[in-house]
C-alpha cells in the first residue's frame, strides 16, 4: 500500500503531482477479516451490491474520500490494513441502514470496524480524552473556561448538574468501566 508522490510531466507540458499507486495484491486480502466483522456485530458485508444508495444518503459522504460504500468494498475484499489505516468518518446516523436495499447495516459495520481499530491499533487520542471525561465527570465534555463564562452570562448555576446525584452516578459508571475492562481497553485511569 505504499504510495509516494512523484513529479511527472504530462503531455501539454503541465507539471502535476501524481500518485504512484501499487496494485493490490492477494497477500493484502485477509479472508478471515469478514468473520471478525460478523463476530463484532458488523453483519455480512457480502450482501452489499455496491449500488451506492448508502453513500447518496450519507450526511458526511462529501467530507471524506473513502465513502461508506468504499469501506464496504474494502471489507468484502478483506483489505484489513487498508481499511484500518485510511481516514473515514461516520456520524452513525443510520440513514444508510434505512435505505439499504440489500438489508445491510453499514453503520453497524462502521461500529464493528471501530472495535477492531481500538483493539488492534489503540484508540485515537480524542476517544481517550472523551472516555476520561466520562470516567471523571459522568459526561463527555468538561464544563470549564468558556462554558462557565457563558453559563454565568445566562444566569445559570456554575455546574449543570446536582452534585448529590452526580457523584453516585460517576461511581456507577466507574464500576461498569472496571468490570467490563473498558478502562484497560481505552487506556484511561480510574484511580484519581
Amino acid at each position, binding site marked *: 500500500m505504499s504510495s509516494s508522490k512523484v513529479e511527472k510531466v504530462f503531455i501539454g507540458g503541465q507539471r502535476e503531482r501524481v500518485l504512484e499507486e501499487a496494485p493490490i495484491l492477494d497477500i493484502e486480502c485477509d479472508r478471515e477479516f469478514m468473520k471478525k466483522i460478523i463476530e463484532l456485530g458488523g453483519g455480512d458485508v457480502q450482501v452489499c*451490491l455496491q449500488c*451506492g444508495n448508502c*453513500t*447518496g444518503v450519507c450526511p458526511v459522504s462529501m467530507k471524506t474520500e473513502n465513502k461508506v460504500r468504499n469501506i464496504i468494498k474494502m471489507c468484502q475484499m478483506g483489505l484489513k490494513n487498508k481499511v484500518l489505516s485510511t481516514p473515514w468518518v461516520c456520524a452513525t446516523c443510520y440513514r444508510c441502514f434505512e435505505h439499504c436495499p440489500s438489508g445491510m447495516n453499514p453503520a453497524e459495520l462502521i461500529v464493528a470496524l471501530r472495535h477492531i481499530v481500538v483493539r488492534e491499533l489503540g484508540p485515537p487520542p480524542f476517544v481517550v480524552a472523551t472516555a476520561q471525561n466520562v470516567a471523571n465527570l459522568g459526561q463527555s465534555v468538561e464544563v470549564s473556561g468558556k462554558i462557565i463564562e457563558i453559563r454565568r452570562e445566562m444566569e445559570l448555576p456554575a455546574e449543570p448538574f446536582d452534585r448529590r446525584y452526580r457523584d453516585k452516578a460517576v461511581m456507577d459508571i466507574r464500576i461498569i468501566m472496571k468490570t467490563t475492562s473498558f478502562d484497560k481497553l481505552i487506556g484511561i485511569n480510574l484511580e484519581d
Partner: protein
Amino acid sequence: MTEEQEAKIGVFVCRCGANIGRVIDCENLREYASSLKDVETSVTHDYLCSDDGLRCMREEISRTGVRAIVVAACTPRLHEKTFRDNIEAAGINRYMLHLANIREQCAWVHADEPYRATQKAKDLLRMGVMKAKTFTPAEAATVQLNRDVLVIGGGVAGIEAAYDLAELGYKVHLVERKPVLGGNMATSFTCLLWCHEVPGKPQNISFRKGTFPTCDCSGCTITPRLVELIDHPNVNVLTMSEVKEVGGYVGNFKVRVVKKPRYVDEGKCVGCGNCSTACPVSVNNEYDYGLADRKAIFLPYQQGIPRKYLVDMDSCLRSKGAECSLCLDSCPFEAPNYSDREKEINLEVGAIIVATGFEAYKPHVMGYLGYKEFPNVVTIMELERMLDKAGPTSGAVVRPSDRKVPKRIAFIQCVGSRNRRISEGYCSKVCCMYTMKNAQAIKEAHPEVDITVYYIDLRAVGKGVEEFYHRTREDYGVEYTRGRPAKVLEDKATQNLIIRAEETLLNKITERNFDLVVLSVSLVPPEGMKELADMLRLRQSPDGFIQEAHTRMKPIETSIEGIYVCGCAQGPKDVPESIAQARAAALEVAILIGKKVLKAESLNAFVDQEKCIGCGLCQETCPYGAAVSEKVGQENKSRIIEALCRGCGTCVVACPSRAIMSRQFTDRQLMSEVRAVLEMN
C-alpha cells in the same frame, strides 16, 4: 405375496458409474444380499437405468421367476417409474418393487467413510428385502379425463396457450378479470416510428442497423392473435370474470366462475362508440393511469379486444338516481342493458393453466422517490401509455404537470426489484430491456431529449440483447450512470426534479436536474394471487409467484397434477419466454387429457371403512382435498379419491381410529423394515 414362504426376491445393485461404486463395495453388497433369506438372485450393474441394465433386469427376472424386486440404486424420485415400467414389461406387477436409496443416502452423504457407508447400504437393503416380502400386487387407479381446459388469465401467455389448445381441438374456457384481453402486453403499446408512418418523422436519426425484434410494436403483434382467438369456435372467452371456487382433481376439476356485469350486451355491441359520444359523464381513466379522461360507458383502450363497451356503474348517472339513458338511446342496436347482473358460470374441465401474469409494482411506499408526491415522477407503465399512438397523449412523451415535452429524462432502475426490504429481493429480469426500448422510443419521438439511466447492474442477456444495449448507447446516445438514487427532490418553481445519487464509478455524489423521472418498476404477483393459489392448492415461491414442480426439470408443472403454470404467473419473464412457456403448457395439457384415461400411481392412502368412525379429521388435514365423506348405510365414512391422493401420509397420522393406511407404507410393511434394521448388524 401374502404368504412369506412364497417370496422369491431378486436384488439388483447399481454402481451408478462411480457415483455409488467409488464409495460402496457393490460386490460385497451383492454377496450380502444373496446370503439373505428368500433372495433368489442378486446382480450388480454399472448403470441399471440404461437400456442394457434394464434388459439385464428383465432377463434375470424371466430366468429366475422372482416375484418381487429390490433395487439398490438412487432416489425413487429419479427412476422409480423407470424400474416399475421395466418389471411390468418383465411380467411382474409394477408395485412389487422396492428402491433402496444407496446413492443419496449412502454414497453421497458418507463419501469419506466407505466402510460404514457399505454397512448402511446393507441395512437399507435388508430392510428393503423384508419389506418386499410383504408386497401384494396392486392395480393403478384409473381416472376418466374431461377434455375441456380452463385457462386463467388472458394476457399473452394465456391467449397463446388457449389458442394452441383450441387449434388442437380442445374446448378452452379463457377467464380474464379485465374487460379486455391482452393483459400487460396490450397496454404497452410502444410503437416505434418505423411501425407507424407519422408525418414529420425526424431525419437526424439514421436507421443504420435496421429494426430490432424487441422493438416490434406490441399492439401490432398481439392484436391479430386476439382476433383469431376471440372468433375461434373452440374458445369460450369470459371477460370481467374471476375464478371463485375450484374443486375436484386431475381430469375432473369443477370450477365456479363469477362474471361481473358489463351492462352492455356483448352480442349486440359492435363497438361503434355512439354511446360514448353521447355519455355526459367524464371521469379519470384508470386504464391510462389518470393521463386522460373517459366516459362512464367506454372502451379501456382503443385497440382493446373484445371491442365491446362497458358501463362503469360507479360513475354512471343512473347509480346516482338519475334517469339518464343517453347511451341506450344513441345505440343503434340497443346494446346497453342496465339490468345486467352478476352471473355465475360452472365449468367442468380436465386441466387448468394458470397464466395470471404480473402487476407493475406501485412505488407509493418508496416516499423518497417522490412518486405520487411530485407530478413529474411517473412509472414505466404510464410512460408506455404515453408512447401509445392511440393512447392519451397520442404518442408524445409529456410532463404530467404542464403537458410539455421534457428536455431531460431520467430512468431509475430496480424500483421494487433487488430490494430485500420490500420483497425477497428478486430481479425482475425485463426492466433493463424495457428501459432500453423506451429510451429508444423516446429518442425516436423526441430526438432532442437527453436521457440518463441510473442503474446498479445491467442485465442485458439473451439473444441480440447486448447488441440492443450497444445501440441504445451508441446510436441513441443514452447515458448510463451507475448508482442507486438516494433521493428525488422537486424544484417547486419549475416542478423539475433533482436526483441525488452517487456515481459509483467516479466515487462522487451527483445532483442532477431532470424534467421527467421514470421509475422502472418491478414485476410483482398480481392482486389476488394468494387467494388463487390457495383456491388451487398451489404453492407460492417466496417472491409470491407460483412455485413450479421442479425449477429445472418441471418448469411448467405445479405441485398439483393437472394444473400448469406459464408466463409471468411463474415469475418475471419477457414476451418470447412467456409464449414459449405457454405453448409448452398447452402441449403438457394436450399430452395429459389427450390420453382420455389416466393411470394414477398407487402410492395413495386407503380407508378401512370397518374401522372408520366418520370423524372427518382426514378431510380437514388432507392438503389435496382427496379425503371425502360418503354415506355407507346410515353412517358417514371417509373415502380417499385415489387420483387426487399424493401419498403424503398426513391423514394416516391424523386418523384417530387407525383406519387409514398408505399403500407401500402399511403398518405391517413399516414394522417389517424396523424389525429388519434391528435384527442384526
